[in-house]
């Protein structure tokens, strides 16, 4: 089996008295779509934010490409090649597609002048590479785009930086049928390009369509790791709602049998 591009070993995180994550193991292989499922409060977002470096894990280690790393912020994450597309997309409505794709990382010439032409070239290449052809113009302001187009722009923004791992938080949550189709196709194309993709979703139908494997979380613990082709949606639902937990909360020494 290939070496995981990202591996979390026994990571924990608590907020005050709330144990949000407890000794979670999680891994993604290159070229793989890994789905992360779980009910509300299962710790999906906490795990993602920990990986993104929004806050540090309390314990456990994170390995990227086999090497232990410590990520202290979005900059560190993107330097490693980890890009996260949040649910609310974080696009500036008043800026055009190119400006959004390069936001915070504008290319400059002579030290400070924005190199619009070069940025537009790359933006077009990336969008074309992902077969995003629904945009009329890359100079359109984002406010005028549909939900699917916005998601495409957000994903294209994430993959443009030679990223190796793209994490998508609920990418289809607010989309219609045709737009969901666009985004799922986009996810498949990312994996075809040998990127690792983590997709968080509540929609098992979508997950079964694109994911190679599924990690399910429950109450802050990893309960199951499925290979999509070997299980049914019922198995996953059962795991999400009633999966066997490895640890009894608050009693870490007494490991329950798994």
């Amino acid at each position, binding site marked *: 089996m290939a070496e995981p591009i990202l591996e979390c070993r026994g990571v924990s995180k608590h907020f005050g008295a709330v144990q949000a994550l407890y000794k979670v193991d999680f891994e993604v292989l290159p070229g793989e779509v890994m789905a992360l499922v779980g009910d509300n409060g299962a710790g999906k977002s906490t795990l993602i934010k920990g990986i993104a470096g929004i806050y540090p894990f309390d314990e456990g280690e994170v390995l990227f490409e086999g090497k232990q790393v410590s990520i202290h912020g979005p900059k560190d994450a993107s330097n490693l090649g980890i890009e996260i597309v949040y649910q609310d997309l974080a696009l500036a409505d*008043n800026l055009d597609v190119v400006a959004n794709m390069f936001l915070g990382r504008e290319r400059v010439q002579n030290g400070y002048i924005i190199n619009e032409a070069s940025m537009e070239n790359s933006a077009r290449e990336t969008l074309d590479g992902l077969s995003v052809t629904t945009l009329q113009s890359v100079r359109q302001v984002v406010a005028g785009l549909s939900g699917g187009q916005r998601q495409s722009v957000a994903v294209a923004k994430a993959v443009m930086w030679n990223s190796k791992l793209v994490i998508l938080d609920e990418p289809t949550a607010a989309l219609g049928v045709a737009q969901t189709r666009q985004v799922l196709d986009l996810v498949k194309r990312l994996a075809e390009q040998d990127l690792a993709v983590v997709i968080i979703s509540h929609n098992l139908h979508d997950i079964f369509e694109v994911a190679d494997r599924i990690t399910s979380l429950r109450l802050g613990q990893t309960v199951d790791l499925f290979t999509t082709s070997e299980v049914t949606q019922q198995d996953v639902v059962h795991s999400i709602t009633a999966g066997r937990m490895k640890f009894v909360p608050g009693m870490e020494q007494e490991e329950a049998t798994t």
Partner: protein
Amino acid sequence: MTADTQSPEELPPISRERKEPTNVSEYFQAWWVKVQAGDLGFLPIIIGLVVIILIFGTLDSRYFSERNFTNLLLQMAPFATIAIGVVFVLLLAEIDLAIAFNSAVGGVIMTLLLRPDDPGWPWPVAIGVALLITTAIGAVMGLIVTKAGVPSFVVSLAFNLGLNGVVLILMIEFSSSGTIRIADQTVRDISNAFLPDAWGWILGLGAVAAVTGAEILKYWTRQQRGLPNKPVGILGMQLGGLAVIVVGAVWYANTDRGVPFVMVVLGFFLVFWSFIAGRTRFGRHVYAVGGNPEAARRAGINVDRVKIAVFMIGGFMAGVGGIVIASRLQSVATNSGGGPLLLNVIAAAVIGGTSLFGGSGKVASALLGALVIGAVDNGMNLQNVNSGVKFVVTGLVLLAAVLADAFAKRRQAASGVR
């Protein structure tokens, strides 16, 4: 990114191709579609300006005189100068209500430092110190807004009162009559000198040539990279239009006393700050923070630093405006920075098309808005109406501008342009 792993044949066909207008008529069609969708750009303000000029022109033929034209330029220059700073602050969806008294602080401090023998500093030093202080005041406001998280409305309101007090204290301390005259001729010349005809032409045509050069360079670069360009005809019309306006203005001013020197100051800052806003990373970040602060933060932009820098720009331009005003009056007085100045400069930025909700507006809107305010003010002065009527009319113009903006926004929301 590698595009070569793609196999488009296998993918479901997804709707239409990208297309951009390639000839003049297509460009106008696309523009008209945008206008109908409520993306008006500078259209309403230019129409408004023409209407205002026609109304006052028919009421009084002196309105079109060469003398009045240069007067108009002199009157609106300080508004436009300060409004540039306001545009930046509004781009962040913040407000700076202290901007008028900050400008007065700049004018008063410069004047005090210039008093002969006491201390009688040379004008560049006096101006430099004054601008340093107004910029620092902006920085302090920015720091409080960002670090303490207090709304800029309240912070700047407090500074508005406080700086009003500072102006009064300084004037009472250093002047018995309530006014201090500016002795330095160079400073008096800022708002009172006119360029010799030849220099008016050189600077005016030089500016047109510089813009043309920059546009041609941009066109050529995009051509080299195979990116779509706007049609040559459109580019020609835009540059031609600019040339006609500049040549017309210089010629008309030259038939009177010449181009006021203050227009060089204003022109420099308009070009400089337009460049900063439109072509630099900092400018891009200002728009991003105004449009979606959370997106900006996640993109690794230091939102606080951008905000503080923008309040500093506001303070700096207020200082420049204060110096321009002091120079025009050749003195400062206890009432410096008071009266309708604050509302006029904020109105100028808003009438020029800068949104109060952040993220949308151009530096040039400071000039257009100030021209409207100046044109109304000037026309009313010729009509000899009292200042009450003047305020009412200016208020109505502002209301009309805001309403036009609101209707445009609604159109845009309905048609999905923004």
